[in-house]
C-alpha cells in the first residue's frame, strides 16, 4: 500500500515539477527537459492506474519520439542565433488568473465524480487489444489513418520548406 502511495506521489511530483519547470523557465532547452519530466510523470500515473500498456506507449511515443522531435525543432530553429535561446512571455498575470479560473472550474465541476482513493479496475495490453481489435476496430483503423496522414503532412510541410 505504501508502495502504491509512493508511486502515486512520485508520479505526481514528476508531473507537477515538470509542468512548473515548463511554466517558469526562460530557457528553451530547460523547458524541453521539464516537458520530458512531465511526460515521465504521466507515464507513472498510467502505471498507477493499472494501465501498464499505456505507460509503455507513453514512454515510447513521447519520451522516445515527441521529445526528440522537440529537441530537434529547438536546434533547427535556433541554430543560427548563437547562444541559448531565451523565452519571452507576456500577459502573465491575466493568463495566470484565467488558467487558475479554468482549473478551478474543472475541479468544481468534477469534484462529485471522484470517489475513493484507489482505482477499481486495471488492465493489461491484452484487454486493450481485445477492445481495439474487437468492438472498436473502426476506431483503431481511423487512428492508424490519422497517424499516416500526420506522417505525410509532416513530410509535405518540411519538404516544401526544403525546396524553397
Amino acid at each position, binding site marked *: 500500500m505504501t508502495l502504491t502511495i509512493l508511486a*502515486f506521489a512520485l508520479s*505526481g511530483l514528476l*508531473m*507537477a515539477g515538470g*509542468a*512548473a519547470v*515548463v*511554466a517558469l523557465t526562460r530557457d528553451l532547452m530547460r*523547458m*524541453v527537459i521539464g*516537458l520530458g519530466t*512531465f511526460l515521465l510523470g504521466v507515464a507513472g*500515473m*498510467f502505471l498507477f*492506474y493499472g*494501465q501498464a500498456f*499505456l505507460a509503455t*506507449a507513453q514512454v515510447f*511515443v513521447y519520451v522516445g*519520439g*515527441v521529445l526528440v*522531435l*522537440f529537441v*530537434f*525543432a529547438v536546434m*533547427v*530553429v535556433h541554430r543560427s542565433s548563437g547562444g541559448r535561446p531565451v*523565452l*519571452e512571455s507576456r*500577459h502573465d498575470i491575466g493568463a495566470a488568473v*484565467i*488558467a487558475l479560473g*479554468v*482549473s478551478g472550474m*474543472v*475541479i468544481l465541476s468534477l*469534484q462529485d465524480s*471522484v470517489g*475513493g482513493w484507489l482505482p*477499481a*479496475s*486495471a*488492465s493489461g495490453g491484452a*484487454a486493450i487489444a481485445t*477492445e*481495439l481489435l474487437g468492438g*472498436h476496430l473502426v476506431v483503431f483503423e481511423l*487512428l492508424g489513418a*490519422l*497517424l499516416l*496522414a*500526420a*506522417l505525410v*503532412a509532416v513530410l509535405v*510541410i*518540411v519538404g*516544401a*520548406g*526544403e525546396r*524553397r
Partner: protein
Amino acid sequence: MTALVLCSLVFGVGLYVVLTRREIIAILAGVELMLGSANILLVALASFAGADGGVIGSVALAVLVVAAAEAAVGLALVVSLARRSKRSRVEELLEVKG
C-alpha cells in the same frame, strides 16, 4: 481527489504557458501539458467510475495517438516556418489580422 486537483492544476499551468509564451515550441509544450493532464484525468475518473480497463485504455490510447500526431505536425510546421523566416514567434507567424 488528489489526482483531480493535480491534473486540473497542471492543465491550468499548460493553459498559462499557451497563453503567455511567444515561442511556438513553448506553446506546443503547453499543449502537451494540457493533453497529458487531461488524459490522466480521463483515466482516473473512468477508473473511479468503475469503467472496464480495456475501454479506458483504448480511449486513452486514442487521445495519446492524436496528441502525438498533433505534436509531430506542429513541430514540422515550426521547422518549416523557421526555415522560411528565421523566426518562430506567434505574432509574426500566426498573423490573423485582416
